[in-house]
């Protein structure tokens, strides 16, 4: 992957495949440049044995091929910066992925276009899943939730109307600019 926003899109696709109704993403940048990314869902979850193997590239539930690269590539890119990827999961209770990356490291990938990642996910999955995104840094913090958007839109207007998706994308671009500025982008 070229940047973290693509890794996060990939990992959130896992959450959706596990039939999550809620996907919560938070990114917190600390003063020393460590970025903590926490992704939580309420999907099927995995049992302990499978979860411990999930970052292995030769572990997958898919039947079309024998490799599953999403988590292992993300883990690799986190470890390149001196960070780590930690997976906690419980069958029936969902999954939590914690990625810690040190943004001051020369091998750290850029954050990328998080707004486009969220907009694509919402466009394709608005009817089944609620998304939240929390961003914070020493420069400020922002909160986004599809529930708030849905309340304004009411029942007649769907979240995947092109104008609404564009609104969400612009809103999230503004939010990530406010919180992370040009540091990570």
């Amino acid at each position, binding site marked *: *992957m070229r940047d973290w926003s*693509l890794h996060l*899109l*990939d990992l959130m*696709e896992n959450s959706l*495949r596990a039939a999550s109704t809620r996907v919560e993403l938070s990114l917190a940048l600390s003063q020393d440049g460590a970025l903590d990314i926490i992704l939580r869902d309420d999907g099927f979850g995995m049992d302990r044995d499978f979860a411990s193997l999930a970052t292995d590239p030769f572990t997958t539930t*898919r039947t*079309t*091929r024998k490799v*599953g*690269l*999403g988590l292992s*590539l993300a883990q690799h890119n986190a470890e390149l910066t001196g960070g780590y990827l930690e997976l906690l999961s419980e069958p029936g209770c969902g999954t939590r992925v914690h990625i810690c990356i040190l943004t001051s490291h020369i091998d750290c990938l850029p954050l990328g276009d998080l707004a*486009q*990642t969220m*907009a*694509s996910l919402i*466009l*394709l999955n608005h009817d089944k899943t609620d998304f939240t995104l929390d961003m914070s840094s020493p420069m400020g913090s922002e909160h986004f939730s599809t529930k*708030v*958007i849905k309340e*304004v*839109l*009411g029942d*007649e*207007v769907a979240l*995947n*109307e*092109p*104008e*609404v*998706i*564009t*609104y969400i994308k*612009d*809103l999230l671009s*503004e939010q990530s600019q406010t919180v992370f500025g040009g540091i990570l982008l």
Partner: protein
Amino acid sequence: MKTLQELEAIRQKTLDRISMRKEDKEVAVRIVIGMATCGIAAGARPVMATFMEEIERRHLHSVNLTQTGCIGMCRLEPIVDVFTPDGGKVTYVNVTPEKVRMIVADHVVNGHPVSEYTIGAVDAQA
């Protein structure tokens, strides 16, 4: 700054349009994009975003965008299937935002598949 008032205005505009849309029965084109790890790594997200932009720009409200997982041909990703109301299905491979604009203009709007981007044409070269 984006405000909730702005969203409220979008809601009103969309409601007006929806009531108009019910009258002219448009038939839907369905576009399916591969969004597994292989698709995302190969650039499926900007492809999806470009479809979205084109749909909004051309007001193609009868076009339906959806996603699928990995179908086992990772080397040809991003892969896009276009299903037309006449029952036709065309598979485009190695899709880029530039190709998306061509596919929307020629195929989705005017009904002529872009044969040089299809899986048949690309596979024949390989």
